């Protein structure tokens, strides 16, 4: 783990779980797998607190445990999973776009709690939705359950590994830690529950109870004491599936940007690609370089209902997509009217390259970007050739090349003419190594987000006194309103915050918003680069 990643993990853990959990988590990330006592000793925290912190981290799938020989249990942190915490808003928003408010709240509860049973999720979400509804209306458990089942069917939520129910045939001592297993086919199996009930408002629970038949009322009030029907079956959000969805989104929008601006019919090519991706959602594993081949007939049948393009037009579009130099779509055969695949790996590569180009352009200028694209295209170029092809004067070209070289976007490849590698008799070729440039940029992104978070915390701390004052004033106003105060009194209290202070608060709010929005946007870049690097590493 690089220093930048560790720093970012530390900031994230501290913001979400507090300093004690942060200390334990960062220690585990730094030192790897360790047993309980060593952690307590090395971090200087009491055993009790280490246990609490580990329980929290394990609950949120950030730390795994493993039983080693001699019964020692070792704990290991998953650094990459910690970094996913940056992406929570994006996951929740995606769930909202796909499954509306119910889906959004289900995913939010699962992310906030790490793992939950289905019944617990349904109950909590129903309560939350009921809060937002008009008076007298409640959210039925059945509707929430349906959305949950749909999420499970499309693999957005999955079951956690569980303790296999062993019969106590061996009277030996139980292991120091349970061994959790899960089989592929069980991962999305929803237990047969009959969750009957409605969401409860915090205050008007009497109203609800009166409307329900008597038989169901005890279930609400005594559900703490009743055995939970799906006890032990925990669910978690399936982040890989969300990542697959983001990747598909990125590919579709790339195709739309490239192809659809020149067609009269809006977004046909991107719609075709989207259909192809949708058809391959469950059949293709997320790490595959290509989707399963789809025949043109199948695609025609699966197009969305509103689309009235004829078969020939579809074939033309497919041919156009397959011939495009971007190579997102490839033709793999001729049966069934033509078999087409989507080159996932190539698509990710193109997206990562586009990101690099964009960074070079914004950082060094468009002429540098031209040189960069040139070197990308021609793979290896000598200094003289760069000047000639890019049509940029020699001095400027050299300057730009060295700027990019010191920024590690471009690298030098030596080709010696003589075995003694004499510099005067060696070719020096400029080349772009996309993988290493992507890694460099990714590392920079981690640093950027760490800087953004630190700056945001600094800004908040600087204005802490003012923030606390405004909170106090709000609390006073709220309590006065509750006890029924006059308008004049409220006005007086509000004036406790002077105009320049209000200005300061406004500026603070604007800055914090900007920093937060920047974090979200940098995380999008991180996603693209990480996907590309992961896809490349899997192919090696």
């Amino acid at each position, binding site marked *: 783990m690089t220093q930048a990643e560790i720093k970012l993990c530390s900031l994230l853990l501290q913001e979400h779980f507090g300093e004690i959990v942060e200390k334990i988590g960062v220690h585990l990330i730094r030192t790897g797998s360790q047993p309980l006592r060593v952690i307590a000793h090395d971090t200087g925290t009491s055993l009790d607190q280490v246990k609490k912190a*580990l329980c929290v981290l394990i609950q949120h799938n950030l730390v795994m445990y493993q039983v080693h020989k001699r019964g020692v249990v070792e704990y290991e942190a998953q650094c990459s999973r910690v970094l996913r915490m940056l992406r929570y808003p994006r996951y929740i928003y995606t769930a*909202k776009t796909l499954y509306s408010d119910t889906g959004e709240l289900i995913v939010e509860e699962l992310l906030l709690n790490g793992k939950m049973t289905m019944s617990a999720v349904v109950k909590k979400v129903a309560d939350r939705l009921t809060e937002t509804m008009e008076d007298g209306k409640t959210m039925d458990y059945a509707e929430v359950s349906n959305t949950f089942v749909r999420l499970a069917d499309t693999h957005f939520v999955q079951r956690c590994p569980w303790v296999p129910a062993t019969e106590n045939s061996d009277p*030996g001592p*139980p292991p120091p830690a*349970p061994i959790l297993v899960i089989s592929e086919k069980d991962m999305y199996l929803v237990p047969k529950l009959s969750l009957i009930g409605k969401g409860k408002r915090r205050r008007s629970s009497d109203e609800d109870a009166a409307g329900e038949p008597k038989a169901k009322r005890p279930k609400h009030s005594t559900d703490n004491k009743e055995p939970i029907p799906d006890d*032990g079956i*925990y669910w978690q959000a399936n982040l890989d599936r969300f990542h697959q969805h983001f990747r598909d989104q990125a590919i579709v929008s790339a195709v739309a940007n490239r192809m659809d601006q020149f067609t009269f019919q809006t977004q046909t090519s991107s719609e075709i690609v989207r259909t192809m991706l949708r058809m391959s959602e469950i059949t293709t594993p997320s790490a595959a370089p290509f989707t399963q081949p789809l025949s043109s007939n199948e695609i025609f049948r699966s197009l969305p209902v509103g689309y009235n393009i004829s078969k020939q037009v579809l074939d033309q579009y497919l041919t156009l997509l397959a011939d495009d130099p971007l190579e997102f779509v490839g033709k793999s055969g001729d049966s069934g009217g033509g078999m087409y695949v989507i080159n996932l790996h190539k698509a990710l590569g193109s997206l990562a390259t586009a990101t690099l180009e964009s960074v070079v352009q914004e950082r060094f200028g468009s002429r540098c970007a031209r040189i960069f694209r040139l070197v990308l295209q021609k793979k290896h170029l000598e200094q003289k050739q760069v000047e000639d092809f890019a049509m940029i004067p020699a001095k400027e070209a050299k300057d730009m090349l060295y700027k990019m070289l010191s920024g590690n976007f471009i690298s030098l490849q030596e080709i010696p003419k003589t075995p003694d590698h004499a*510099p005067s008799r060696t070719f020096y070729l400029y080349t772009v190594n996309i993988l290493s440039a992507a890694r460099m940029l990714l590392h920079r992104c981690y640093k950027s987000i760490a800087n953004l978070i630190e700056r945001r915390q600094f800004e908040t701390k600087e204005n802490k006194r003012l923030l606390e004052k405004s909170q106090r004033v709000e609390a006073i106003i709220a309590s006065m309103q509750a006890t029924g105060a006059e308008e004049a009194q409220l006005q007086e209290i509000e004036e406790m915050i002077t105009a320049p202070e209000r200005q300061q608060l406004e500026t603070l709010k604007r800055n914090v*918003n900007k920093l937060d*929005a920047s974090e979200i946007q940098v995380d999008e870049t991180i996603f693209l680069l990480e996907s590309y690097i992961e896809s490349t590493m899997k192919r090696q």
Partner: protein
Amino acid sequence: MAGNKGRGRAAYTFNIEAVGFSRGEKLPDVVLKPPPLFPDTDYKPVPLKTGEGEDYMLALKQELRETMKRMPYYIETPEEKQDIERYSKRYMKVYKEEWIPDWRRLPREMMPRKKCKKAGPKSEKAKDTSKGVSLTNTADVLKKIEELEKRGDGEKSDEENEEKEGGKEKSKEGDEEDDDDAAEQEEYDEEEQEEENDYINSYFEDGDDFGADSDDNMDEATY
């Protein structure tokens, strides 16, 4: 060497023209310090993306941050006492639900100890006698204490005692690994044994603190 043009004169081992500098000595200065922390950039960054989705995610992010602080998973560090009592503190108290993890999914060592730490040695012995397996161990301890009492050698007996208790503890660990209570008692015993040692230490210690520590001889002054 023949290649030297003269003393102190720099001679490049490569063709300087290739790098871009002519034969004249117009090389840039050597930089002796790290680059500035906040360098000026020639190109200003592009404005952030805006839109409905981005706004929603921003609001979500800030809400989540606040919500996480109120969840039971956020473990607070004990704060130092505030210097001024604030009126609004009454209204800003956050009520946190207690969270109990599913112990079946966690290693057994995660469970908090049920018994309190500061139980006296007497109660520990009482607990010991309630368990069948450790009866013999306790009897051994008592027997050894009697033997050592007879010997009357303070320091040595302490060490022996400690070793024996340490040894007994290990054997306890071996026998009672499968017992949940014993698992707790293992850790409990480790800390507890020290206290027991202290008790016995002071009982056997030479000279200095014997009179002062024992409860019985409080009234008498030691000369």
